[in-house]
């Protein structure tokens, strides 16, 4: 087993282990903070897939953005202390069905995909400029549309916050 393989398994273990804590922890704040390790583990897996830009973006947007937002959301919940910030199990049957369907789809994709296996570790210099070129050539419309979608999201977020 090579060093990269060992690191891969460590990252996978960190990702899954912390994801388990996210789900099973009764304390919402613990869940939020252990999500950080899940995101970090996923970022590590991206690096091992040579997707360097995606890995750093994961760090920037998920760890630095979404997680902070989630924690702020938890902090905004009032009367948390007396009720004990907890997440219990409820609606078990519908959840099982949804998770089952999702798992089936994932397994299907997993077995049907023809995985490209590369020999050794290719010497890639980085994906950033390739992504940049793709954004303004082949994917120009999605690039601009995503800008507008984000504008709509900002307007909607501000509007909803104002209504309270």
């Amino acid at each position, binding site marked *: 087993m090579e060093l990269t393989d060992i690191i891969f398994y460590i990252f996978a273990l960190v990702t899954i282990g912390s994801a388990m804590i996210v789900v099973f922890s009764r304390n919402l*704040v*613990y869940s939020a*903070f252990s999500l*950080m390790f899940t995101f970090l583990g996923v970022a590590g897996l991206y690096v091992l897939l040579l997707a*360097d*830009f995606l890995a*750093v*973006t994961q*760090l*920037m947007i998920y*760890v*630095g*953005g979404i*997680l*902070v937002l989630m*924690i*702020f959301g938890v*902090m905004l919940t009032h009367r948390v202390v007396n009720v004990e910030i907890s997440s219990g199990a409820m609606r078990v049957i519908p959840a099982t069905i949804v998770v089952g369907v999702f798992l089936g789809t994932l397994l299907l994709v997993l077995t049907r995909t023809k995985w490209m296996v590369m020999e050794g570790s290719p010497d890639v*210099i*980085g994906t*950033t400029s390739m992504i940049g070129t793709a954004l303004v050539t082949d994917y120009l419309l999605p690039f601009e549309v995503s800008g507008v979608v984000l504008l709509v999201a900002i307007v909607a977020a501000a509007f909803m916050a104002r209504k309270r």
Partner: protein
Amino acid sequence: MEQFIHDLIGNDLLATIVWCVLPLVFILGYAIVAILAEMKSASWFQDRLGPMRTGPWGIFQPFADVLKLLMKEDIVPARADKILFNLAPVIVFVGAYAAFAVLPFASEYVGADLNLGLFYLIAVSSFGVLGIIMGGWASNNKYSLLGAMRSAAQIVSYEVPSATALLIVAMMVGSLNLQDIITAQSGGFWNWFILGGPKSDVVLASGAVIHADIGNFVFLPLLLATFVIYYLSALAETNRTPFDIPEGESELVGGYHTEYSGMKFGMFFMAEYANMFLVSAVAAVVFFGGWQSPWGITLGEALDIPVLTLLEGVFWTAAKGFFFVFVMMWLRWTLPRLRVDQLMYMCWKVLIPASFALALVVGFIVVIR
């Protein structure tokens, strides 16, 4: 230099670890100097003498302080969340140290030569926010929680203008590699980005060529404004005065680290000082030529002594970084603290629109030239 360490140690993994420890050694040395500088500059600004008893002119004061912190009792409040309380200083320091991975200290030394170093730097700086919120929440103290929330809101707000300011320089270089950004400024201080960037064609390590001529002086006012935006945002991101609302002692005692004592407090302190140097060094790298000497040539290269070149690089990085750290200390005793509404006004209504406008103008000039 990397090859030299590998040859010296033999074991590849061990050599890499030694390679990665070097910035830590630098931070420890820097922290000692910075603590004394902070005390001495504070006292001189206020017409005092400052520490005078420990050693000549009190130069051993920082050692005494570190020793004191090390030997202080570590108090964990009974109502605190023990796990997160202990984890928070680790996260905060790891976030600060991880950013040092891409900081070039010399032409031969950069911890990890990432192609998207600049982008990584921005991503990692948000890591410390989580540690701060973690510490603030785990302390179970009103001041800590309020300080942590304010701190987090401030850091994330000011990350937008600081990232945009760095984006503007990336637009001029066409690379996110910090070594490329420094190479683009080689040849003397008139080629630094603060003075409009390179004035003649530059060939980067990747073989890409930046076309430039004397007309690049049109960028001077634009990049000067960009630097001001970056430095102000950096001040806010490190929670330094005048942006120290999260730690404003007159209303929040100590901010998010109110409950921390002993070495755990010391770790928050170290992380803050490391972050101060980091943002200062990034300002130096991006706008002031990094490890380049102001006149473009180094004594080591002239005499063909690689070790001297290396030391000169580290010297210039440290000197430029220290200068901006000193400016931070200077501002601390010059400017009063902002109010929260002024803080938000500054960020969302001044710095962000200005940085976007600058990005548009700089991009336009780069394309038409």
